[in-house]
């Protein structure tokens, strides 16, 4: 909108010409008193509009204390903090044409410290939805939306390739539509685990570990579709609803006790958003499932390495799970766990959430470096050999960042399940 604040300066004052108090002459300007005055009179149109949107009501609660600024990962690599966003809206910018609309990764670091509970996790999707409805979507994000809409995954791959990772695998991966029987664990494999080459490594490791532990599991295979959580955070609520309806319909066809996911974004969707649409499940992140099996894990090898762990925003801050991944890492023979300065509740975002996974170009135009690069520098600083992760967005993001920061060869990026698999099945082919 670019609306300039309507500035009014009404300087009024009173002064008495002759005043003597206790022998002291304070005549003229010495007794001048300012009348009440407006320094600036802002239009509240933009703020009124934003806070009229469902979910965005809390934006006006901000009192500019700025606690959110130093914790915002985007601020670390640019000039963006939730406080600044509020100020823009106060000054009349409704953000519809502003690149800042798309920089938030919905990591929730600001919400954790905000004394007024200004909830960017709800504000950003509500605001972005308005831009999406007007078709004002960055091209790269629109491409990902389009792939999810047409193919059920952001990579634009056909459904029939969702199980390509099972080919040549040394264990059997049952598919529910084929076995037609109830299972204990429905393993929701997720998009990047199913389609990305580095995701395949985690998927194959998971299949081996589940099999060795004797867990009764099956997957959906071609019927699985994107959970929709990231497009929801990126403002495409309709796409989220469409995908959720399709997944809920698929889940309803089968009997299972636990819904186990690789992807914290899927975890968040299934746990916090699908119930509102009628899909209630006993949802577990795979680390939460496996932590109860530590005593049953037979380690035939070890991983002799110093390992640090990156808390995924949607497993940690959003859903409070910090311990299960660490307990698993500590159970692996040879692993020496070391922490980065930003860890657990203060964990630093990889940049992939809230649509950031598909906004690399836009982010690059407004940031000094990628969040993943900043995070990799932090991991390297700990002296760790391995940066372990528990979200399928991360291996590709961090491996690229390891290379682009000149750290190739000095830091491996591995999913926790890959580390467990290496220690349990040292002879298995990756």
């Amino acid at each position, binding site marked *: 909108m670019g609306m300039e604040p309507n500035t009014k300066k009404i300087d009024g004052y009173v002064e008495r010409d002759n005043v003597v108090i206790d022998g002291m002459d304070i005549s003229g300007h010495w007794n001048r008193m300012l009348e009440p005055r407006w320094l600036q009179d802002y239009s509240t149109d933009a703020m009124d509009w934003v806070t009229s949107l469902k979910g965005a009501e809390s934006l006006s609660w901000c009192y500019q204390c700025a606690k959110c600024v130093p914790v915002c990962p985007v601020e670390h690599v640019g000039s963006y903090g939730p406080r600044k966003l509020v100020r823009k809206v106060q000054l009349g910018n409704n953000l519809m044409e502003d690149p800042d609309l798309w920089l938030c990764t919905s990591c929730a670091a600001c919400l954790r410290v905000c004394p007024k509970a200004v909830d960017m996790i709800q504000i950003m999707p509500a605001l972005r939805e308005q831009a999406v409805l007007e078709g004002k979507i960055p091209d790269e994000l629109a491409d990902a939306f389009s792939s999810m809409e047409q193919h059920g995954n952001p990579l634009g791959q056909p*459904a029939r390739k969702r199980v390509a990772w099972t080919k040549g695998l040394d264990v059997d991966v049952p598919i529910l539509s084929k076995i037609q029987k109830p299972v204990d664990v429905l393993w929701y494999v997720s998009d990047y685990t199913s389609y990305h080459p580095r995701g395949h490594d985690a998927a194959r490791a998971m299949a081996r570990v589940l099999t060795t532990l004797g867990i009764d599991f099956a997957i959906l295979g071609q019927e699985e579709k994107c959970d929709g959580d990231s497009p929801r955070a990126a403002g495409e609520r309709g796409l989220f609803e469409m995908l959720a309806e399709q997944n809920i319909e698929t889940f309803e066809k089968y009997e299972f006790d636990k819904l186990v996911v690789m992807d914290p974004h899927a975890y968040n969707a299934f746990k916090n958003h699908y119930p509102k649409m009628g899909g209630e499940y006993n949802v577990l992140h795979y680390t939460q499932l496996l932590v109860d099996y530590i005593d049953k894990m037979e380690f035939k090898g070890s991983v002799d390495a110093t390992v640090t762990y990156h808390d995924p925003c949607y497993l940690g801050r959003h859903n409070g799970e910090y311990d299960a991944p660490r307990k698993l890492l500590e159970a692996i023979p040879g692993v020496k766990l070391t922490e980065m300065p930003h860890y657990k509740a203060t964990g630093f975002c990889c940049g992939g959430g809230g649509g950031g996974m598909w906004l690399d170009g836009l982010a690059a135009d407004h940031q000094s470096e990628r969040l993943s690069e900043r995070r990799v520098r932090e991991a390297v600083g700990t002296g760790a050999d391995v940066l372990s992760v528990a979200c399928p967005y991360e291996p590709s993001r961090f491996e690229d960042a390891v290379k682009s920061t000149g750290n190739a060869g000095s830091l491996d990026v591995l999913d926790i399940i890959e580390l467990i698999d290496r220690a349990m099945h040292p002879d298995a082919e990756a």
Partner: protein
Amino acid sequence: MKILVVMKQVPDLADELEISDDGNSLDPDAVTWVLNEFDDHALEEALQLKDALGGSVAALALGSEAVDKALFTALAKGADEAKKVGEFEGGVSSHVAAEAFAAAIGGMEYDLILTGVQAIDDLDGQVGPLLATKLEIPHVSVVTHVEVSGDAKSVTVHQEYAGGVLAEFEVDLPAVLGIQAARATPRYAPVSRVRQLQKEASLETIDGAPSGTSGLEVERLFVPETGGHAEMIEGDEDEAAEKIVNILEERGLLPK
């Protein structure tokens, strides 16, 4: 300027297509229908013209159960009207399609009709020419550039040929153009908007012409046979580079 966009749906090639037991049609259970990609370009070009010059865009598609989503999507992208033409299931020959569209369009006002140059199901490319013939207006196909004249009575279009050659035509309006590629990538239709429209808007159905009889008759469908495979070049960067240079030299593609 009033623009009509003529569209149809085709099987989604992302799915594995299966041939029915009758041997001459696709197994309908294995088919997901999507808008023909070239028609999507025709729609985009129409919307771009409207954005630049004003006017209106009406999207017309052969009627089927699966086509509703494509028409609501056209509305979500910015079309002013969306109409179903007749009732058809499965594939339709170009003659039948052109006859149905001609009957539907006969009574409408329009300046320009855009359609995809062809559709991936039959690669026939005849709907545009047949429709223009029936409406007795000019037609150009394989169009990659459309510019409307100042008085809006004609368009200058580019027709693409192999090897980067193109012809420029000036065509009196109204006319039918078979679009090869729009000036911009077809825009994304927000699902949020499509779903809003599915709740709020309704689609008009125009009764099509009686089914045509001429056109192609499919006797038998075959799954393509796999031919030769690509040769994978092994070795490190230097070895691979040397092999590539050798191959290019052998074929006379590099100056010695």
